[in-house]
């Protein structure tokens, strides 16, 4: 029956012709190829987010009065609602983690080099979008922690020179974090960000397909020196099956995390209550948060916080444009980029750990 169905489609769509490039496509195989799976897993987790997000939309109500109760309703009254919400939360966190890991693996494997600059740029923007997803989604259950984290987060936005204040008012939908902010964040989370992300993601994937897998320079050199050492696998089915296996393992891990450590809901946000002590943002913002805390309030004549934000802004811009600073003919350029990546990674890990342990 399966063969008949296939034949039916083949006659109309000419599947063989369509899949031919995939059959001929090969993926290099070497001792570092495991790192290639991070992007795929991030994609898979994004898919999970879309599916569970749509499921949550069936019951969620985006207003200050009802948001918390509707999430509580999902978790208590809806069958398996706890699982869907838990998976959404866990998957979100894992996705941000794998996205970061993907970014650093690309850096260390030097996959950003010509001709893959655009892939890098689209990927970096996707990373920012993912963080935007995290920031906007965190508020939606309207619990105390999320409320104050959003308050602090948007406050920091307000420190950006010139555009900060209007930007903060735009994000908050007013001068303060209120139900209006929630409605706005909901709009960003389920409409604006997914729209932009879909376009960028298609671009990113198309570029990856078009340009093929990059080869780390050292492997490339080794293979050039000794063509017999060159090893490749077919994209379809070998690589796809491996990818599928990775996805299944990710799914198992996700299910186990969601079932054994369900995401807590906390208490409903009270805009008039004073902030609980030791309020912290989600872990992926922690390194920035901690840095801003450590900068003295005045550095020379510049406000410390402003300095920190401008610094992060410049660093992010520089990071996006990183491939354009790498010159093939300049022998040292890739070395300093790798060195800088190590420093950045160490900084992020250390600051996050410090922020986690500090009060």
């Amino acid at each position, binding site marked *: 029956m399966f063969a008949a169905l296939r034949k039916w489609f083949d006659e109309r769509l000419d599947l063989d012709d369509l899949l031919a490039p995939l059959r001929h496509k090969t993926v290099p195989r070497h001792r570092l190829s495991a790192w290639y799976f991070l992007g795929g897993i991030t994609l898979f987790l994004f898919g999970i987010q879309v599916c569970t997000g749509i499921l949550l939309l069936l019951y969620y109500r985006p207003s200050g009065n009802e948001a918390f109760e509707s999430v509580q309703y999902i978790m*208590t009254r809806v069958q398996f609602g*706890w699982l869907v919400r838990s998976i959404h939360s866990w998957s979100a966190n894992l996705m941000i983690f794998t996205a970061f890991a993907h970014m650093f693996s690309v850096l260390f494997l030097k996959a950003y080099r010509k001709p893959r600059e655009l892939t890098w740029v689209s990927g970096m923007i996707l990373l920012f979008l993912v963080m935007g997803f995290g920031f906007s989604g965190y508020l939606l259950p309207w619990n105390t922690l999320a409320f104050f984290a959003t308050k602090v987060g948007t406050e920091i936005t307000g420190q950006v020179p010139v555009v900060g204040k209007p930007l903060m008012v735009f994000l908050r939908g007013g001068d303060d974090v209120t139900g209006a902010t929630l409605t706005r964040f909901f709009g960003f989370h389920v409409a604006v960000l997914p729209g932009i992300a879909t376009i960028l993601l298609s671009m990113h994937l198309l570029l990856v397909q078009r340009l093929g897998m990059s080869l780390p320079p050292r492997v490339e050199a080794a293979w050039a020196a000794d063509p017999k050492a060159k090893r490749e*696998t077919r994209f379809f089915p*070998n690589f796809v*099956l*491996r990818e599928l296996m990775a996805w299944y393992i990710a799914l*198992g891990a996700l299910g186990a995390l969601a*079932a*054994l*450590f369900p995401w807590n809901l906390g208490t409903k946000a009270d805009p008039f209550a004073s902030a609980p002590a030791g309020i912290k943002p989600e872990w992926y913002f922690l390194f920035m948060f901690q840095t801003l805390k450590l900068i003295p309030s005045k550095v020379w004549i510049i406000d410390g916080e402003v300095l920190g934000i401008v610094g992060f802004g410049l660093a992010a811009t520089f990071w996006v444009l990183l491939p354009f600073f790498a010159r093939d003919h300049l022998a040292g350029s890739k070395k300093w980029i790798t060195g800088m990546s190590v420093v950045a990674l160490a900084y992020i890990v250390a600051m996050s750990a410090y922020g986690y342990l500090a009060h």
Partner: protein
Amino acid sequence: MAILHINLDRFHRAACLMVVVVSATLGFGQNKNSCLDCHSALPEPLNVTQEKFSQDIHAQKGLTCASCHGGDPTKDDSDKAMSRTAGWKGHIDRRQVPQLCGSCHSDPATMRKFDPSLRTDQLSQYHTSVHGQRLSKGDTKVAVCTDCHSVHDIRPPSDPRSTVNPVNVATTCSHCHADANYMKGYPIPTDQFAQYNTSVHHDALTVRGDLSAPTCTTCHGNHGATPPGVDSVRNVCATCHAFQAQMFEKSTHKQAFAKASLPGCVVCHGNHGITHPSDAYLGTGSVALCMRCHAPGDRCDQARANILAELTSLDHSIKRADNILKLAESSGMEVSEARLAQNEARDSLTKARVTIHSFQPELVQQDVQAGLKIANANFETGQRAMAERRYRRVGLGLSLLAICVVVIGISLVIKHIES
């Protein structure tokens, strides 16, 4: 408390003259109230600054130094301003203070001009108080108005900085009553303040900020401060703990206590250092109360044991339900409804602990049974949640098994293709 009986008049005049000369040359001294011109520069105890006096409720209502001390503040010359012919009274003797304050505060006609709702019986009450009675017998160490209300910066009691604000009353009383040296010669202890600070009432007042919680004056009165007598203790406590009082009233203890002239509540709960009561009061341990009077094995001892058993069983049931609900909640089960219902069970326990004052095991049992029903239902909810947790884990195990099979399958396929 240091009380000055020295006549400072000579020093007073000389110093004041000097200040006037200095301030006149500087172009000051045009002020209507010339008293403060000097007194803001004088050393203690004559020092009164504009800043201090402006805090005083009397100053805010338009009274001046002359309202109490007499004299003519419009005169810059200290001799004229402080002349006895202008009615200047100088230092007010402690014995005169209540009368002086009372000249306005006991006069409804005068007080109506400022605050018609203010009482005017303070002076007559003061005369009935131990302080007032001792003062009339010539004991000047006792408190007069100014000792509690302060002198030149008197604030209304509602002001949190006032010495007679509920939060500050105990400290104000303690200035004398906790000073063993000062209280020497009086047959009362000086540890009330230290004891009160350990009490549940102090906790309610300062920690929980419950301004209705009792402080010294709540039980002893303020202007008519006396220790409540043996008979009135119950009434004093009953103003807040009405329920306990009603029960006690109907109980057999009422007459037994009266016969032995025991002062009600205080017998078990103490007075100044009332701590949060515990069920162990009903036990036989070191804090046990009943067994101080009752003999082991008699009817009352049995009732005591019954009541204690009731309370303990409810307490245990509540804790048991709390524990399982907490465990279920920490593993992600939603049991907020049962946790809410736990409050009702706790209410029953609180009520049962109040009902103890009837000393009737049947009445306590009624409250306990109501609570037990709720707590046990909540415990069952907790058990169901734990069963649900097991169900989830089994489900997870099964799906993980399926995932495992698929992963193994794929890896075999890959091996097969690549071999």
